């Protein structure tokens, strides 16, 4: 059963000409851990606020557990106090005049839970979140991380069906962030709550979520598992936004209506309806060798940057700059001439509208078109192939 369904959800704030959320449709299943990922100002918070009911939609529809809670067409709006959705604010919004314990049991009191049970549930949540020892303190006497756990406890105590978290980790330092990340994952497992959380940190999204929804300028760009988002970005924005170092983009200038060409190499057959405009490859998918052959491109090593256990190598190729990352210590020096092999299955193509071009096997397999002498030397190719599948598994 879907916990939350958004249908063409749009929000345009009064006085703004551009919508902050534009025709977003997505479904969050029960028990799912979804991340809304996108750059600052893309409308993530706005979506959460609309789901919680603190903000209302301009058009479209929100359904929680198949019950429509906000719809312009049905002139229906259920206020937040009746939605049973938890929301942890970006800056926690703890009530400064109440102790930690009163903050946590506020919701239970409102539900008129008997005192005994209330006490037990409070203690349970507070001990799970390890804030029991601060029960009598006021929020101003807590550190940022502790405050955040109180904010979480406050929402978990009433056991909401859905929990919305707005950049829950952004105010924390690196260690605490790692700790809280583990904590969130543990929480999701113990409580089994449906969670939607917002982040602009892709690393956080990748490690935490089952599903990632990437947003830009109010529009949903792609929705999928972290692997799908990474391996098959549906457009140029997603490709560029996900991945560190950033994906390499090369403008294709020589392509014709038959082949997609790069530096007089044929990469694939041109699809019938749309033309490839840009070709992209992840830094770790580039293979550098010393030996040149028909499939390699000559490049110059500009810069070698160690990043602690791995290396990022900056390459120049004509006027393009490419990045290659590797786990093994590079055997070249800056200024060396190398040959780069861009394995066809690892290539992404985007058309003029920056949309992903989905190429079938037959488009990629162009070898039958070429004279056999043009193929890479057999042994070399084999070796390259194993390399590549290794990279994929990793």
């Amino acid at each position: 059963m879907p916990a939350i369904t958004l249908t063409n959800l749009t929000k345009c704030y009064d006085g703004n000409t551009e919508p902050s959320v534009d025709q977003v449709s997505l479904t969050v299943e029960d028990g799912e851990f979804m991340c809304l990922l996108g750059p600052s100002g893309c409308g993530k918070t706005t979506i959460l606020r609309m789901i919680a009911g603190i903000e209302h939609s301009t058009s479209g529809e929100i359904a929680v557990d198949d019950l429509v809670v906000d719809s312009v067409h049905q002139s229906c709006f259920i206020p937040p106090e009746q939605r049973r959705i938890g929301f942890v604010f970006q800056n926690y919004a703890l009530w400064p005049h109440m102790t930690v314990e009163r903050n946590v049991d506020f919701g239970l009191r409102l539900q008129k839970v008997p005192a005994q049970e209330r006490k037990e549930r409070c203690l349970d949540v507070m001990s799970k979140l390890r804030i029991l020892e601060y029960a009598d303190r006021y929020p101003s006497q807590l550190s940022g991380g502790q405050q955040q756990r109180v904010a979480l406890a406050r929402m978990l105590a009433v056991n909401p069906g859905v929990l919305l978290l707005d950049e829950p980790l952004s105010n924390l330092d690196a260690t605490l962030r790692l700790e809280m990340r583990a904590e969130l994952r543990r929480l999701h497992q113990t409580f089994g709550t449906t969670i939607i959380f917002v982040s602009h940190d892709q690393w956080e999204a990748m490690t935490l979520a089952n599903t990632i929804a990437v947003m830009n300028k109010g529009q949903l760009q792609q929705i999928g598992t972290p692997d799908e988002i990474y391996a098959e970005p549906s457009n140029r924005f997603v490709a560029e936004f996900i991945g560190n170092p950033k994906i390499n983009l090369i403008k294709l200038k020589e392509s014709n209506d038959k082949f997609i060409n790069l530096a007089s190499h044929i990469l694939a057959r041109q699809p019938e309806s749309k033309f490839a405009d840009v070709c992209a490859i992840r830094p770790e998918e580039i293979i550098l060798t010393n030996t040149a052959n028909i499939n390699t491109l000559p490049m110059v090593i500009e810069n070698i940057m160690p990043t602690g256990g791995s290396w990022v190598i900056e390459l120049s190729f004509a006027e393009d700059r490419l990045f290659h990352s590797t786990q093994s210590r590079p055997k070249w020096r800056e200024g060396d001439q190398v040959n780069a092999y861009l394995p066809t299955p690892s290539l992404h193509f985007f058309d003029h509208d920056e949309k992903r071009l989905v190429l079938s096997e037959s488009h990629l397999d162009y070898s039958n078109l070429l004279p056999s002498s043009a193929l890479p030397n057999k042994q070399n190719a084999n070796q390259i192939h194993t390399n590549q599948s290794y990279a994929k598994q990793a």
Partner: protein
Amino acid sequence: MTTLLTAAEQKKPNLWRRARHSFAVARHEPANLIGLVLAIFFAYLILAPVLSILVDSFIVQSGDEARTHQDEGSFTFYYIVRTLYSRISEILIWQPLYNTLAIAASTVVFSMSIGVVLAWLVNRTNMAGRAWFATALIVPFMLPTWTFALAWTTIFKNRTVGGQPGWLESLGITTSNSVAYGYFPIVFILVLHYTPLVILIVGNALRRLDSQMEDSARVLGAPSRTIAFSIVLPLIRPALMSAALLIFADCIGEFAVPYILGLPVRYDTLATGLYRALDTRQNGVAAVIAAVIMIIGVITLLIDVRMMKEARRFVTVGGKGNMDRLRKLGRMRLPASGFAGAFVLIGVVLPLLTLFLSTIMILPGRFTLDNFTLDYWIGSNLDTVALRNGILLTPEFWQAAWNTIVIVGSSSMISGVLGLLVGYAVLRCSFKGVGSFLRQITFLPYLVPGIAFAAAFLSLFAVARGPIPALYGTPLILIIALVAEKMPFASRSGIAAMTQLGKEPEEAARIAGANWFSRMGKIIIPIQAGPLATGILLPFISGIKGVSLFIILAIPSTDVLTTYSLRLLDYNYDQAANAVVLMIALIAWLGTVLIQKISGTGLAQGLEN
């Protein structure tokens, strides 16, 4: 679901659907209802009196039918012509207008000159006793203006008016009218009262001034004089301007001091002229005078708004204020303290001491032991005509004190809560128009000096209108008028407090499932308890010092301490009147101490709002 809808319809639903949806949303936002109710309430409470007094100046008032040869209630220019263009308009308006402007302008000039020097001494120099002066110099502002006026008459009163003579008179020194009454003492007293305001406002600006700006100029080789005139002065100019305009506006509306010191020699200001017109039942003329006062208020405010707008373009005052370096005064250190000390002596010690001594002396100005008595405080069976007991044993005094607490207290409470609600509605209301209407209408009384406002209230609520009975003579009219008068301050601090709080604590409570009453009772009001307490106490203090509203709207049975003391003065019970004034000053001082205890922020911020 909504799959049947066309794509276009999905993207932009029609107006009707959007309106119904907005209504569905608004239904769950109580701020909308509160906003609407408050808007209607204040339209009646504030806009209606102001409009009614403007209308009154064009309508034939009852009793004037014969003079105007028109029926009561018909349209006329009679009052305008009579007030502005007739043979007596010189007395009715031009001379009072000239006096008012002269008093206001002189007060601004002198209090600014003295205040700026003192502010600089207290905040930027190493003058002796600096910390002590920072508090002591503010005290005159906490005392009602007419405390000084009464102290002045106690010393300088001469034979022009009856009753007990002044001290100098009884010591054989004859004071001339120009020293005892009129322009000179009025300005002198207002300067004493408003100089602390300059010290507060300019002092704050000086403290916030980034000393690095001065240092940069010094590094470039600028001499002190250049720094003062081309760096510091321009930067604090907005503060100077706002202090000047504030004082100017307050002086225009000042009633008590010219009432005590001007009336005996027929030195009228607009405020006392208005009072005289009302007193002699010339309601139409009073309406015109009130309108003139309002127009001056509006002009002052427009200038203020304009200057603030210009100031905002370059105001970067703010920075590391804690870096302030004190200027070494050297040989001038003690003289500087002497100057500040003289101000405290004249502004605090002398008036209070004079008043106190006057209450324990049988005959004024005779400093012999047998002339001292506590009878005026706690004596009984005195051989006076009416007031046969000391003031503390007189039931009327306690009645007036009780009235003060009830009337001023409840109105401060109401205006404090209303101010918070206005802040709530302004920030939460879905309809922008309602919010800005509330913001502006609650500020309107600021433009209308108390005496004109009281006149407006009188003209609106003196007779029964529609469902509202005649309120004149009841405490209710005083409470309502006070609430309206205090709304500019209350709504401003309410809006500020709610802005600072932000929406999130309440949104979090909504998400936890709290309905509006729990949100108000358990979240908003408890969090805002501090600001609310200040928002009630500050109006309370200024309310118990207030004169102008009461003198027009109160009758003997609704006497508050201020009107009671003025009534005593009218019957020449000077000692008793002064004792009552001292009690008022005591209450005001205690209240101020209480505020400082509660808010911890100190007086300066509260007063600057």
